[in-house]
Protein backbone atom coordinates (compact mmCIF):
# COMPACT_ATOMS: atom_id res chain seq x y z
CA UNK A 1 0.00 0.00 0.00
CA UNK A 2 1.51 3.34 -1.01
CA UNK A 3 1.95 5.89 1.72
CA UNK A 4 -0.47 8.83 1.36
CA UNK A 5 0.59 12.24 2.57
CA UNK A 6 -1.34 15.37 3.21
CA UNK A 7 0.15 18.67 2.15
CA UNK A 8 -0.51 20.95 5.06
CA UNK A 9 1.70 23.83 4.01
CA UNK A 10 -1.00 25.91 2.35
CA UNK A 11 -3.39 25.41 5.20
CA UNK A 12 -0.72 26.45 7.64
CA UNK A 13 -0.06 29.58 5.63
CA UNK A 14 -3.72 30.56 5.78
CA UNK A 15 -3.85 29.88 9.48
CA UNK A 16 -0.81 31.97 10.18
CA UNK A 17 -2.21 34.92 8.29
CA UNK A 18 -5.56 34.59 10.05
CA UNK A 19 -3.94 34.29 13.44
CA UNK A 20 -1.84 37.38 12.96
CA UNK A 21 -4.82 39.32 11.65
CA UNK A 22 -7.00 38.36 14.60
CA UNK A 23 -4.30 39.04 17.18
CA UNK A 24 -3.60 42.42 15.65
CA UNK A 25 -7.28 43.32 15.72
CA UNK A 26 -7.27 42.51 19.41
CA UNK A 27 -4.34 44.68 20.25
CA UNK A 28 -5.65 47.74 18.42
CA UNK A 29 -9.29 47.63 19.43
CA UNK A 30 -8.91 46.09 22.82
CA UNK A 31 -11.53 43.82 24.21
CA UNK A 32 -12.81 46.31 26.69
CA UNK A 33 -16.45 46.65 25.85
CA UNK A 34 -18.53 43.89 24.41
CA UNK A 35 -21.93 45.06 23.28
CA UNK A 36 -24.74 43.60 25.29
CA UNK A 37 -27.05 41.25 23.49
CA UNK A 38 -30.17 42.71 25.09
CA UNK A 39 -30.11 45.89 23.07
CA UNK A 40 -29.17 47.56 19.82
CA UNK A 41 -26.73 50.41 20.13
CA UNK A 42 -27.37 53.55 18.10
CA UNK A 43 -25.16 54.37 15.14
CA UNK A 44 -22.96 57.42 15.04
CA UNK A 45 -20.13 58.84 12.97
CA UNK A 46 -18.01 59.53 16.04
CA UNK A 47 -14.33 58.62 15.65
CA UNK A 48 -13.35 58.07 19.27
CA UNK A 49 -12.88 54.42 20.19
CA UNK A 50 -14.55 53.16 23.33
CA UNK A 51 -12.71 53.07 26.65
CA UNK A 52 -13.16 51.25 29.93
CA UNK A 53 -15.38 52.45 32.69
CA UNK A 54 -18.16 51.23 34.90
CA UNK A 55 -20.49 49.28 32.66
CA UNK A 56 -24.05 50.59 32.69
CA UNK A 57 -26.53 48.94 30.36
CA UNK A 58 -29.96 50.39 29.74
CA UNK A 59 -31.73 47.77 27.68
CA UNK A 60 -35.35 47.53 26.61
CA UNK A 61 -36.34 45.67 29.76
CA UNK A 62 -33.81 46.14 32.54
CA UNK A 63 -30.96 48.30 33.75
CA UNK A 64 -27.72 46.46 34.53
CA UNK A 65 -24.57 47.66 36.25
CA UNK A 66 -21.53 45.47 35.68
CA UNK A 67 -23.84 42.85 34.16
CA UNK A 68 -25.95 42.54 37.29
CA UNK A 69 -29.61 43.47 37.20
CA UNK A 70 -30.54 46.60 39.11
CA UNK A 71 -34.06 47.55 38.18
CA UNK A 72 -36.77 46.72 35.62
CA UNK A 73 -37.42 49.32 32.96
CA UNK A 74 -41.20 48.98 33.42
CA UNK A 75 -40.88 50.44 36.90
CA UNK A 76 -38.83 53.31 35.53
CA UNK A 77 -41.28 53.95 32.72
CA UNK A 78 -44.18 53.98 35.15
CA UNK A 79 -42.33 56.30 37.56
CA UNK A 80 -43.23 54.05 40.49
CA UNK A 81 -42.54 56.07 43.64
CA UNK A 82 -40.44 53.35 45.30
CA UNK A 83 -38.16 53.25 42.25
CA UNK A 84 -38.11 56.75 40.79
CA UNK A 85 -37.86 59.60 43.23
CA UNK A 86 -37.58 63.14 41.98
CA UNK A 87 -36.32 61.98 38.61
CA UNK A 88 -33.66 59.81 40.23
CA UNK A 89 -33.68 56.03 40.02
CA UNK A 90 -33.10 55.03 43.63
CA UNK A 91 -31.91 51.40 43.20
CA UNK A 92 -29.47 52.53 40.51
CA UNK A 93 -28.17 55.28 42.76
CA UNK A 94 -27.57 52.79 45.59
CA UNK A 95 -25.73 50.42 43.27
CA UNK A 96 -23.61 53.20 41.80
CA UNK A 97 -22.71 54.51 45.24
CA UNK A 98 -21.70 50.98 46.23
CA UNK A 99 -19.37 50.74 43.23
CA UNK A 100 -17.95 54.21 43.74
CA UNK A 101 -17.24 53.38 47.40
CA UNK A 102 -15.44 50.22 46.25
CA UNK A 103 -13.50 52.15 43.64
CA UNK A 104 -12.46 54.74 46.18
CA UNK A 105 -11.29 51.99 48.52
CA UNK A 106 -9.25 50.65 45.61
CA UNK A 107 -7.79 54.11 45.15
CA UNK A 108 -6.64 54.18 48.77
CA UNK A 109 -5.42 50.60 48.89
CA UNK A 110 -3.85 50.08 45.49
CA UNK A 111 -3.54 53.52 43.96
CA UNK A 112 -6.00 52.85 41.14
CA UNK A 113 -7.31 56.29 40.29
CA UNK A 114 -11.07 56.69 40.52
CA UNK A 115 -12.14 58.65 37.46
CA UNK A 116 -15.90 58.63 37.96
CA UNK A 117 -16.28 57.32 34.45
CA UNK A 118 -19.39 55.42 33.49
CA UNK A 119 -19.95 53.89 30.09
CA UNK A 120 -23.62 53.91 29.14
CA UNK A 121 -24.93 51.43 26.63
CA UNK A 122 -28.43 52.47 25.72
CA UNK A 123 -30.94 50.90 23.40
CA UNK A 124 -31.63 53.03 20.37
CA UNK A 125 -35.36 53.17 21.13
CA UNK A 126 -34.83 54.50 24.63
CA UNK A 127 -36.93 57.65 25.16
CA UNK A 128 -35.10 60.82 26.10
CA UNK A 129 -36.94 61.09 29.44
CA UNK A 130 -35.55 57.75 30.65
CA UNK A 131 -32.06 58.58 29.42
CA UNK A 132 -32.15 61.81 31.37
CA UNK A 133 -33.25 59.94 34.50
CA UNK A 134 -30.33 57.54 34.13
CA UNK A 135 -27.85 60.32 33.46
CA UNK A 136 -29.09 62.47 36.31
CA UNK A 137 -28.76 59.49 38.64
CA UNK A 138 -25.17 58.93 37.45
CA UNK A 139 -24.33 62.57 37.95
CA UNK A 140 -25.61 62.51 41.50
CA UNK A 141 -23.92 59.20 42.34
CA UNK A 142 -20.30 60.24 41.88
CA UNK A 143 -20.13 59.20 38.24
CA UNK A 144 -20.19 62.51 36.37
CA UNK A 145 -18.04 61.37 33.45
CA UNK A 146 -20.62 59.81 31.21
CA UNK A 147 -19.81 58.20 27.91
CA UNK A 148 -22.43 57.02 25.46
CA UNK A 149 -21.48 53.86 23.62
CA UNK A 150 -22.36 53.74 19.93
CA UNK A 151 -21.56 51.77 16.83
CA UNK A 152 -19.12 53.67 14.73
CA UNK A 153 -20.05 53.89 11.09
CA UNK A 154 -18.09 55.89 8.60
CA UNK A 155 -20.19 57.54 5.96
Amino acid at each position, binding site marked *: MPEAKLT*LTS*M*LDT*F*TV*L*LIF*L*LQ*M*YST*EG*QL*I*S*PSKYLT*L*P*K*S*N*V*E*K*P*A*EVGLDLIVSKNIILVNHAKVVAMDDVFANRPEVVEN*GIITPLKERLLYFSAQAKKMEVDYGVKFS*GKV*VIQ*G*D*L*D*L*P*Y*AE*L*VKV*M*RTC*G*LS*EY*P*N*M*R*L*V*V*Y*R*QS*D
Partner: protein
Amino acid sequence: MAFKPSLRRHHKEVSTELNLNPMLDMMTVLIPLLLANAQFARIGEIELNLPPAASGVAQGAAALPKEEQRTLDLVVSITDQGIYISSALSAPEASPNRKPTITIRAGGDYDYQALSQQLYEIKKKAGNNFADPESIVIQAEPKIRYQILVSAMDAARSIRLGEKTVSLFPNVSLSAGVI
Protein backbone atom coordinates in the same frame (compact mmCIF):
# COMPACT_ATOMS: atom_id res chain seq x y z
CA MET B 1 48.83 0.90 4.96
CA ALA B 2 45.64 1.67 3.22
CA PHE B 3 44.22 5.15 3.46
CA LYS B 4 41.07 5.25 5.37
CA PRO B 5 38.68 7.75 3.81
CA SER B 6 36.82 10.10 6.04
CA LEU B 7 33.62 8.72 7.27
CA ARG B 8 31.96 12.09 7.11
CA ARG B 9 31.91 12.29 3.37
CA HIS B 10 29.84 9.22 3.14
CA HIS B 11 27.12 10.43 5.40
CA LYS B 12 23.85 9.93 3.73
CA GLU B 13 21.62 13.00 3.46
CA VAL B 14 18.72 12.39 5.72
CA SER B 15 15.55 13.98 4.53
CA THR B 16 13.91 15.47 7.55
CA GLU B 17 10.45 16.91 7.77
CA LEU B 18 9.26 19.41 10.29
CA ASN B 19 6.75 18.00 12.67
CA LEU B 20 3.92 20.47 12.24
CA ASN B 21 1.35 18.63 14.27
CA PRO B 22 1.73 20.61 17.52
CA MET B 23 1.57 23.87 15.64
CA LEU B 24 -1.52 22.78 13.78
CA ASP B 25 -3.12 21.73 17.03
CA MET B 26 -2.47 25.10 18.54
CA MET B 27 -3.79 26.92 15.48
CA THR B 28 -7.02 24.95 15.37
CA VAL B 29 -7.64 25.84 18.99
CA LEU B 30 -6.57 29.49 18.81
CA ILE B 31 -8.34 30.47 15.62
CA PRO B 32 -11.87 29.43 16.59
CA LEU B 33 -11.32 31.05 19.97
CA LEU B 34 -10.23 34.37 18.51
CA LEU B 35 -12.88 34.28 15.81
CA ALA B 36 -15.62 33.68 18.35
CA ASN B 37 -14.49 36.61 20.46
CA ALA B 38 -13.74 38.99 17.65
CA GLN B 39 -15.88 42.08 17.18
CA PHE B 40 -16.37 43.07 13.66
CA ALA B 41 -18.54 46.05 14.54
CA ARG B 42 -16.49 49.00 15.63
CA ILE B 43 -17.58 50.50 18.89
CA GLY B 44 -17.13 54.14 19.71
CA GLU B 45 -18.16 56.49 22.43
CA ILE B 46 -19.55 59.99 22.74
CA GLU B 47 -18.02 62.04 25.48
CA LEU B 48 -20.26 64.04 27.73
CA ASN B 49 -18.53 65.92 30.46
CA LEU B 50 -20.71 67.43 33.08
CA PRO B 51 -19.55 69.12 36.27
CA PRO B 52 -19.99 66.88 39.32
CA ALA B 53 -23.30 67.59 40.98
CA ALA B 54 -21.89 67.59 44.49
CA SER B 55 -19.77 70.68 43.90
CA GLY B 56 -22.40 72.31 41.74
CA VAL B 57 -22.85 75.43 43.88
CA ALA B 58 -19.19 76.36 44.16
CA GLN B 59 -18.49 75.66 40.52
CA GLY B 60 -21.60 77.45 39.38
CA ALA B 61 -20.49 80.64 41.09
CA ALA B 62 -17.01 80.40 39.59
CA ALA B 63 -18.36 79.71 36.14
CA LEU B 64 -20.63 82.74 36.03
CA PRO B 65 -19.96 84.67 32.84
CA LYS B 66 -18.16 87.96 33.20
CA GLU B 67 -19.79 91.14 31.97
CA GLU B 68 -17.78 91.48 28.83
CA GLN B 69 -17.91 87.81 27.90
CA ARG B 70 -20.89 87.28 25.70
CA THR B 71 -22.04 83.74 25.32
CA LEU B 72 -23.60 82.20 22.27
CA ASP B 73 -25.99 79.99 24.29
CA LEU B 74 -26.72 77.77 21.35
CA VAL B 75 -29.63 75.46 22.06
CA VAL B 76 -31.04 72.78 19.80
CA SER B 77 -34.45 71.49 20.82
CA ILE B 78 -35.78 68.32 19.29
CA THR B 79 -39.55 67.95 19.26
CA ASP B 80 -41.93 65.73 17.39
CA GLN B 81 -42.67 68.67 15.07
CA GLY B 82 -39.06 69.24 14.11
CA ILE B 83 -35.91 70.85 15.41
CA TYR B 84 -35.71 74.33 16.92
CA ILE B 85 -32.44 76.24 17.02
CA SER B 86 -31.95 79.26 19.22
CA SER B 87 -28.86 81.26 20.07
CA ALA B 88 -27.73 84.74 21.00
CA LEU B 89 -27.72 85.53 17.29
CA SER B 90 -31.33 84.59 16.70
CA ALA B 91 -33.53 85.04 19.72
CA PRO B 92 -36.56 82.80 19.68
CA GLU B 93 -39.83 84.48 18.91
CA ALA B 94 -42.26 84.73 21.72
CA SER B 95 -45.23 83.27 19.92
CA PRO B 96 -46.05 79.75 21.02
CA ASN B 97 -47.01 78.74 17.49
CA ARG B 98 -43.53 79.34 16.17
CA LYS B 99 -42.62 76.96 13.38
CA PRO B 100 -39.60 74.72 13.95
CA THR B 101 -36.36 75.86 12.34
CA ILE B 102 -36.23 72.53 10.58
CA THR B 103 -39.56 70.83 10.13
CA ILE B 104 -39.81 67.08 10.27
CA ARG B 105 -39.95 65.23 6.98
CA ALA B 106 -43.05 63.47 5.78
CA GLY B 107 -41.77 60.03 6.72
CA GLY B 108 -41.21 61.09 10.31
CA ASP B 109 -37.43 61.37 10.14
CA TYR B 110 -35.38 64.44 10.84
CA ASP B 111 -33.27 66.36 8.35
CA TYR B 112 -29.86 66.20 10.04
CA GLN B 113 -28.10 67.64 7.03
CA ALA B 114 -30.20 70.78 7.23
CA LEU B 115 -29.41 70.95 10.95
CA SER B 116 -25.68 70.72 10.23
CA GLN B 117 -26.02 73.36 7.55
CA GLN B 118 -27.89 75.77 9.84
CA LEU B 119 -25.36 75.28 12.62
CA TYR B 120 -22.56 75.89 10.14
CA GLU B 121 -24.16 79.22 9.23
CA ILE B 122 -24.38 80.12 12.92
CA LYS B 123 -20.77 79.10 13.44
CA LYS B 124 -19.69 81.34 10.56
CA LYS B 125 -21.77 84.26 11.82
CA ALA B 126 -20.61 83.88 15.40
CA GLY B 127 -16.92 83.86 14.52
CA ASN B 128 -14.82 84.52 17.59
CA ASN B 129 -17.15 86.98 19.26
CA PHE B 130 -18.36 84.63 21.95
CA ALA B 131 -16.87 82.96 24.97
CA ASP B 132 -18.32 79.55 24.13
CA PRO B 133 -17.59 79.03 20.44
CA GLU B 134 -17.68 75.23 20.66
CA SER B 135 -20.54 74.57 23.05
CA ILE B 136 -24.02 73.45 22.27
CA VAL B 137 -26.91 72.35 24.43
CA ILE B 138 -29.24 69.72 23.09
CA GLN B 139 -32.60 69.13 24.64
CA ALA B 140 -35.46 66.96 23.55
CA GLU B 141 -39.01 66.07 24.31
CA PRO B 142 -39.43 63.07 26.64
CA LYS B 143 -40.58 60.77 23.86
CA ILE B 144 -37.66 61.41 21.50
CA ARG B 145 -35.71 58.23 20.76
CA TYR B 146 -32.08 57.81 21.72
CA GLN B 147 -30.97 57.26 18.12
CA ILE B 148 -32.43 60.63 17.10
CA LEU B 149 -30.51 62.30 19.90
CA VAL B 150 -27.26 60.62 18.86
CA SER B 151 -27.81 61.59 15.24
CA ALA B 152 -28.49 65.19 16.27
CA MET B 153 -25.24 65.15 18.26
CA ASP B 154 -23.44 63.89 15.18
CA ALA B 155 -24.94 66.69 13.12
CA ALA B 156 -23.89 69.24 15.73
CA ARG B 157 -20.36 67.92 16.07
CA SER B 158 -19.16 68.34 12.52
CA ILE B 159 -20.25 68.96 8.98
CA ARG B 160 -18.89 67.40 5.84
CA LEU B 161 -18.18 69.96 3.14
CA GLY B 162 -17.07 68.23 0.01
CA GLU B 163 -13.97 66.26 0.95
CA LYS B 164 -13.12 67.77 4.29
CA THR B 165 -14.92 67.67 7.60
CA VAL B 166 -15.37 70.92 9.50
CA SER B 167 -15.81 70.83 13.25
CA LEU B 168 -18.87 72.71 14.47
CA PHE B 169 -19.78 72.47 18.15
CA PRO B 170 -18.03 69.46 19.69
CA ASN B 171 -18.80 70.31 23.33
CA VAL B 172 -22.23 68.79 23.60
CA SER B 173 -24.29 69.07 26.74
CA LEU B 174 -27.70 67.63 27.33
CA SER B 175 -30.41 69.58 29.01
CA ALA B 176 -33.34 68.16 30.88
CA GLY B 177 -35.20 71.41 31.18
CA VAL B 178 -38.23 70.14 29.33
CA ILE B 179 -39.16 67.54 31.93
